[in-house]
């Protein structure tokens, strides 16, 4: 009967080992996956930066879903180099052709003073609450921890802000700021699903906070019961990672544009009218912004508000949910956010069309000109203000 030593010797005969110094050099070059096969409690105390974690007990079942290219190089490690040797053998049997087991493991790596960090961690309650996110390799514990540390500001707790806030809170965005100066009116309830009949007459921000904290106590809801103005906008939006624009008028949208471009904060734009809506991501550092798409607002007689012209109640549910999704994509660096593109939704025919947007060379409100942008009250044509120096 074989002993442990026999099994280890047999495993080592079939695999290739790499020492820690060579592994570090190889990782620095890039293009190599790093796989940590230790137990969760060991991993939680510290790991190589960017390492994929699959405990050895789950290796066979999970690795093919996580490392899809079997010819790509993989460095596998454990605490001391024993479990990684067995794991490397298993990977070879699964058809991985370029596997290296790191001799000495994380213990040696750490002792030699090489770079590592304690991975993000969640409480057991959070691990359960966000289980469906954790199952997505694109989110995982790291991404969920990032969401919990993120700050999103919602402009408006109305039609668009309601579904956006609910989904962002459910997703575990740790800080959600809400700017709204209105009180809940019974006519809001046809679409503004943050509120309910018992809250009619309450401040909207207070109603929103009650709903969101009841949904997810992880979320810190910050209320701004005020009208967004040139005087307060910089103070309010500073420090937020993403702003979800669900305003109901053009001057607020231009004011937000100018302030967000000045500070370089991405804005997830949503706008709705009757049966149609639009979503785009205006990222001042990466693509066109609101003034590139709409150089000036329409005159009031050509642009009635939803209060005047109506809106189908489900429409903001769709558009606001897409805004929440785009906000999460921006926060996590996931997929292709709608930067430089606008999604136009027509629910009468249920079409979703995407059009390309470009920077307007005549638009002076840009990230490059940020020091010259003056955030002032806007009305009429909402023309921008820039200092001349």
């Amino acid at each position, binding site marked *: 009967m074989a002993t442990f030593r026999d099994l280890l010797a047999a495993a080592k005969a079939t695999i290739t080992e790499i020492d820690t110094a060579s592994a570090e050099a190889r990782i620095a070059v890039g293009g190599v996956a790093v796989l940590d096969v230790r137990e969760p409690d060991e991993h939680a105390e510290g790991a190589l930066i960017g390492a994929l974690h699959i405990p050895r007990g789950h290796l066979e079942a999970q690795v093919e879903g996580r490392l899809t290219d079997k010819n790509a190089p993989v460095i596998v490690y454990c605490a001391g180099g024993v479990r990684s040797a067995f794991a490397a053998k298993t990977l070879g049997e699964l058809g991985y052709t370029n596997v290296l087991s790191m001799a000495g493991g994380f213990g040696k790596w750490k002792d030699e003073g090489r770079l590592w960090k304690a991975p993000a961690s969640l409480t057991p309650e959070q691990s359960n609450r966000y289980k469906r996110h954790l199952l997505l390799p694109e989110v995982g514990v790291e991404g969920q921890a990032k969401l919990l540390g993120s700050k999103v500001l919602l402009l408006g707790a109305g*039609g668009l802000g309601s579904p956006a806030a609910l989904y962002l809170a459910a997703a575990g965005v740790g800080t959600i700021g809400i700017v709204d100066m209105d009180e809940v009116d019974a006519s809001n309830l046809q679409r503004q699903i943050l509120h309910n009949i018992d809250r009619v007459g309450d401040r909207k921000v207070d109603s929103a906070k009650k709903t969101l904290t009841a949904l997810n106590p992880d979320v810190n809801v910050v209320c701004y019961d005020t009208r967004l103005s040139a005087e307060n906008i910089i103070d309010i939006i500073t420090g937020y990672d993403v702003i979800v624009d669900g305003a109901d008028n*053009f001057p607020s*949208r231009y004011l937000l544009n100018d302030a967000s471009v000045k500070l370089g904060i991405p804005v997830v734009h949503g706008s709705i009218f009757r049966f*149609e809506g639009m979503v785009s991501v205006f990222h001042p550092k990466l693509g066109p912004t609101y003034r590139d798409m*709409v150089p000036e*607002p329409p005159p009031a007689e050509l*642009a009635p508000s939803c209060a005047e012209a109506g*809106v189908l109640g489900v429409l903001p549910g769709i558009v606001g949910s897409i805004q929440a999704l785009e906000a999460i994509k921006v926060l996590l660096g996931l997929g292709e956010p709608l930067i430089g593109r606008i999604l136009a939704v027509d629910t009468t025919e249920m079409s979703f069309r995407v*059009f390309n947007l470009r920077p307007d060379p005549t638009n002076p409100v840009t990230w490059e000109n940020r020091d010259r942008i003056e955030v002032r009250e806007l009305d009429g044509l909402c023309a921008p203000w820039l200092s001349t120096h």
Partner: protein
Amino acid sequence: MAVTVRIPTTLRPLSGGNATVQVEGGTLREVLTALDAAHPGFKDRLFDEQGNQRRFVNLFVADDDARYLQGLDTPVPAGETVSIIPAVAGG
């Protein structure tokens, strides 16, 4: 072969309620002029007094913003779709 113009719901009262209108024309200006001839009223909504594209209306030829192509002189191949997307601010 005609060009298809997609009409937003806000402007459908002008097109008799139609979501799309087929017209003839080789440039964006010709297409929209033909649209106005078939359904009077579009010109006022899309062009200013000098005949330029209004700044709160986006016109897309296929997927691209005509403002950054050749404006109203942008060629529109037969069979192509022109989309009118007016700015809205509702939330």
